[in-house]
């Protein structure tokens, strides 16, 4: 009876995961989908705690289990509630790493159990640990890169080193699983060490701008690691949940690459990180850029008919989304038509800008997708670029030697005037120069996005 109840709970869990993922891929049902998957997870967790049996033995150590659940819940909720919208990608990466570490620890404990293990079991334990560890180490590096603690580094011969480590990992797994050296338990810990090293070196050379793709990939790795747990415990819900995320995550990774018009291989080899400033955009046209004063910018926009605002990571960092919305309202009062041009990969993650502007109550209809925005450019008087850089870089269309060549961009030069708000002339996240800043139509408005926007609003109100 109880075992039937447990299996039923697992079945419900699996179904909610499938429904949840399905609903998450449509804007109207997404939030409900998330809650349904969460409910299924809770059912599966409590069913396991109270109903799981192995060899007629129930689980014990309830105090420990509940203590750990309580700690995790409190810390997890606080971290997730407190995190700034800008730091969301880092947070997801960190949570992903926790899942990987969890899979790694499970394998460690299982390995240390005294009973003799079959070859199949050993294989599942070893692979679960390998993938979990790679995911954990990689996620921590991705987290560090996104919040700027870790800089992009290319190691000479990195590709070759990674390949050697990978080959070493496979060899170790074969040795451990095959039981060729039973007297050397250290081999198993060798897998742990090499996998951690591999995770670090795998993510290290990949450029910061590509981190979302990497996080998505590591996400599917953790899914696979969870699925190995499903094999280990003959547990259907771990298996479906894990594999589902593994395959959906892989597709999502490919979709993200497509949105940037790049191949996964290209991303993984790390052409962004490999070429530092200057390599992509040679210093040929540097030098002359125009600065524009706040007052002039305000006048230019106030007498325009149509203004398109292009937000980027700079807006997110400055937390300027609310002021931005205010600027839009002031301009609308003056009879200016204001819309937002959203590049699919503006910010640090696809959809980042939509979430940010939605937080400031910017109406949904005002957010134009890239193609739509580009159609409107030729009839636009002023384009205001707020802390975006690579997504408006003309090199993506014109310079085949540029690392971002081929990426679709917002074609701001079709408009009459382009005002670029930036803190300095430093290149963007991809580390390449942007010729747009030196073009005749472009004027630079230097300063922190929030302060600049506030001053613009004041100026506009006085006009």
């Amino acid at each position, binding site marked *: 009876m109880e075992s039937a109840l447990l299996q039923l709970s697992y079945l419900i869990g699996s179904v909610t995961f*499938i429904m949840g993922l399905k609903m*998450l891929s449509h804007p109207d049902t997404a939030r409900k989908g998330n809650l349904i998957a969460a409910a299924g997870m809770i059912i599966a967790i409590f069913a396991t705690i109270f109903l799981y049996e192995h060899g007629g033995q129930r689980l014990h150590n309830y105090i420990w289990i509940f203590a750990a659940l309580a700690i995790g819940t409190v810390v997890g909720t606080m971290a997730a509630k407190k995190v700034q919208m800008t730091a969301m990608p880092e947070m997801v990466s960190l949570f992903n790493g926790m899942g990987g570490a969890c899979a790694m620890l*499970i394998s460690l404990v299982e390995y240390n159990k005294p009973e003799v293990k079959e070859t199949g079991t050993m294989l599942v334990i070893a692979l679960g640990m390998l993938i979990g560890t790679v995911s954990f180490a990689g996620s921590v590096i991705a987290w560090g890169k996104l919040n700027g603690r870790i800089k992009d580094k290319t190691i000479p011969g990195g590709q070759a080193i990674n390949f050697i480590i990978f080959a070493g990992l496979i060899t170790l797994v074969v040795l451990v699983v095959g039981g060729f050296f039973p007297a050397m338990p250290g081999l198993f810990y060798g897998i742990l060490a090499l996998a951690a090293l591999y995770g670090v070196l795998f993510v290290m050379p990949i450029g910061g701008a590509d981190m979302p793709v990497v996080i998505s990939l590591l996400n599917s790795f953790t899914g696979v690691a969870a699925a190995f747990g499903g094999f280990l415990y003959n547990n259907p819900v771990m298996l479906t949940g894990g594999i589902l995320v593994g395959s959906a995550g892989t597709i*999502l990774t490919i*979709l993200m690459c497509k949105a940037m018009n790049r191949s996964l291989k290209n991303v993984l080899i790390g052409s962004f990180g490999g070429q530092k400033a200057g390599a992509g955009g040679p210093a040929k046209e540097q030098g002359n850029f125009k600065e524009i004063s706040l007052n002039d910018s305000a006048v230019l926009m106030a007498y325009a008919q149509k203004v398109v605002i292009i937000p980027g990571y700079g807006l997110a960092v400055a937390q300027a989304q609310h002021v931005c919305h205010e600027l839009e309202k002031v301009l609308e009062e003056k009879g200016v038509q204001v819309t937002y041009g959203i590049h699919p990969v503006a910010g640090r993650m696809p959809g980042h800008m939509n979430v940010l502007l939605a937080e400031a109550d910017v109406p949904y209809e005002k957010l134009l997708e890239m193609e739509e925005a580009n159609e409107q450019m030729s009839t636009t008087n002023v384009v205001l670029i707020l802390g975006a850089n690579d997504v408006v870089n003309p090199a993506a269309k014109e310079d085949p030697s540029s690392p971002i060549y081929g990426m679709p961009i917002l074609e701001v030069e079709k408009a009459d005037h382009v005002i670029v708000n930036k803190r300095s002339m430093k290149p963007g996240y991809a580390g390449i120069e942007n010729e747009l800043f030196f073009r005749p139509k472009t004027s630079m408005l230097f300063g922190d996005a929030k302060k600049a926007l506030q001053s613009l609003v004041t100026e506009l109100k006085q006009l």
Partner: protein
Amino acid sequence: MDTIISLFTDPATYRLITIVILSIFLGIEVISRVPSVLHTPLMSGANAIHGVVIIGAIIVMGQAPDNDYLALTLGFLAVILGTLNVVGGFVVTDRMLEMFSKKKKK
């Protein structure tokens, strides 16, 4: 070779393999047409779902003998990490999506 044959003859293993293969196709099918706006929340939601690994952690913890301090410590840590993945993942996703629904109403 025997191990490979047993994959097909052992009903339990065979069942697991069937689940794996069907789940792969299901995962691809379920999200193959998703607007780019939803990439981030979807990734975050998927991230929460693989937190199902916590079930393994609970089993490890619940089976650890009272005197096996290594298993107890590692299991305890594993449950904490798994919970962080699950709870944090779902809460962060909900926060992202909350903003989408807010703007829908306006």
